[in-house]
């Protein structure tokens, strides 16, 4: 447990440090999935080791939250601190969205509604190659506005891609408002269930619970799995939580100091 808390803390710390240093936004979206990323990367049963061709695959469909992934890649030792510190710099592979040429990133993403299709292809390939590798897709709730995502939802269920695990970062918020006001997506779990997925409602900030859920999934036969991860946008920083502003906004010096102080005591 201590390790898991440390992972969440370290991911949040890096998100804040790097976004402050680079003076860029998307902080709230990255903090929202910090614990999901901690659950995936600190779990001994999942391997995203870029040196292993038969590794589990991860598609960060909500690519704008990639800073959480960069943090994990650094904590795993797959990118160096010097590389991490190039975030949003010139000649850097660490941009606001994931770039597959970076060690540890399987797919370039950023355009919402595309990642689940990539994951379906990757899962299908694993089945055809008789590999036990799993494919994780982390998508946002607002991304479910995109019709293309539901094409992939239908396909995965029809073909019973049990090795496909989608995680929906259900923070109820999108770029210009709350999802219930922009395009109501609730009841999210029922929608996925109706399409034939194996649905699990989870606390998206409970690392141990998410790991336990994933560990208990049958990824060999049956329906594809989705974790409806209930999260708080900007989780861990009081003035960011559930605030639309932090979808785009960078931090001031004072805001940064407060945020760093809060993640140390609030997590």
């Amino acid at each position, binding site marked *: 447990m201590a390790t898991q808390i440390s992972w969440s803390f370290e991911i949040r710390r890096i998100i804040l440090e790097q976004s402050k240093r680079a003076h860029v936004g998307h902080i709230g979206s990255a903090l929202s999935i910090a614990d999901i990323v901690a659950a995936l990367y600190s779990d001994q049963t999942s391997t995203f080791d870029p040196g292993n061709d038969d590794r589990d695959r991860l598609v960060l469909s909500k690519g704008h939250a990639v800073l959480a992934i960069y943090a994990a890649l650094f904590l795993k030792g797959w990118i160096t601190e010097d590389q991490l510190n190039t975030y949003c710099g010139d000649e850097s592979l660490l941009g606001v969205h994931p770039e597959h040429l970076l060690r540890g990133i399987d797919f370039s993403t950023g355009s919402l509604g595309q990642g689940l*299709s990539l994951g379906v292809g990757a899962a*299908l390939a694993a089945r055809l*190659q008789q590999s036990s590798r799993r494919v994780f897709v982390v998508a946002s709730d607002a991304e479910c506005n995109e019709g*293309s995502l539901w094409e992939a939802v239908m396909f995965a269920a029809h073909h019973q891609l049990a090795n496909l695990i989608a995680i929906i970062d259900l923070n109820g918020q999108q770029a210009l408002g709350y999802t219930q006001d922009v395009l109501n997506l609730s009841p999210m779990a029922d929608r996925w269930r109706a399409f034939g997925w194996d649905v699990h409602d989870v606390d998206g900030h409970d690392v141990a619970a998410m790991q336990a859920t994933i560990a208990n999934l049958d990824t060999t036969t049956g329906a594809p799995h989705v974790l409806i991860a209930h999260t708080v946008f900007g989780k861990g920083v009081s003035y960011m939580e559930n605030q639309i502003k932090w979808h785009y906004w960078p931090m001031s010096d004072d805001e940064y100091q407060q945020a760093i102080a809060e993640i140390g005591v609030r997590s």
Partner: protein
Amino acid sequence: MRVALVKTLVELATTDPRIMLLTGDLGYTVLEPFAEKFPERFLNVGVAEQNMVGIATGLAEAGYIPFLYSIVTFASLRPYEFIRNGPILHQLPVRIAGIGGGFEYGHAGPTHHGLEDVGVMRVQPGITLVAPADHQQARTAIQATWDMPGPVYYRLGKDDRTTIPELEGRFELGRVQTLCEGEDIVIVAMGPLAGEALTAAKTLAQQGIGCTVVVVACLNPAPVADLVNILSRFRVALTVEAHYIVGGVGSLVSEVVAESGIRCRVVRCGVRTTPDGVGGSQRYLQGMHGLSSEALVRTAIQALEKVVS
């Protein structure tokens, strides 16, 4: 060219287990030879072209060579951003076969007319773009490109019977193929309209006008050196394509002329107007847009007269 595609794929897939065939619920009586021989490598994804491209990207990342099959507009335009962000951005060997370029689905109406696929694909430097003139060239072109590391877009016709004898199925990446040679005017054709261009050339010859006809079947990489070489010998060039005049082979030739400083007047024969709701056969619609051999003859003579005057 549909039969040529599937026949070639069956042969290739027999020795290469990486080849898969995906369709967006199209290809009745065409895809069965592959589907029956390799059921585990054939997939009808349903009416979902965006997902088809996304799936293919995931498959290709894992080592497969997926061929995607649909009508031109659905294969290129509907999933365009998926193509851009998937196989092109990742440089993965996804093959997209768009069937029925131009007015081949004439009676089906403007939603089924493929008039801009070459243009939208040609602006992407990372994709090989092939538009064969007949089924024999389609077969050669597929054999020459199926194993490339990056993505390929094929604009394929429906016709598997008509051949252009002078072409003899020749294809080479980044090259043009010459069908006949004359001194007065050059016609640069893309796709099956090369047949109309040849007929026009024969009529022009009877009137004492020597005509060179070349086929551009590989638009990316563009056959720049060949075009410079050929165009520099003529004062007038006609480009012929079942495509909007913007973005296709007419644009390519114009760009080559402009950038190389060749003194050659380019007259683009293609589709210049938005759909007007009038339907009809492929032949009728091509005629409407000045793409019949008779119209090409008239356009060629007018172009030559302008240059002389």
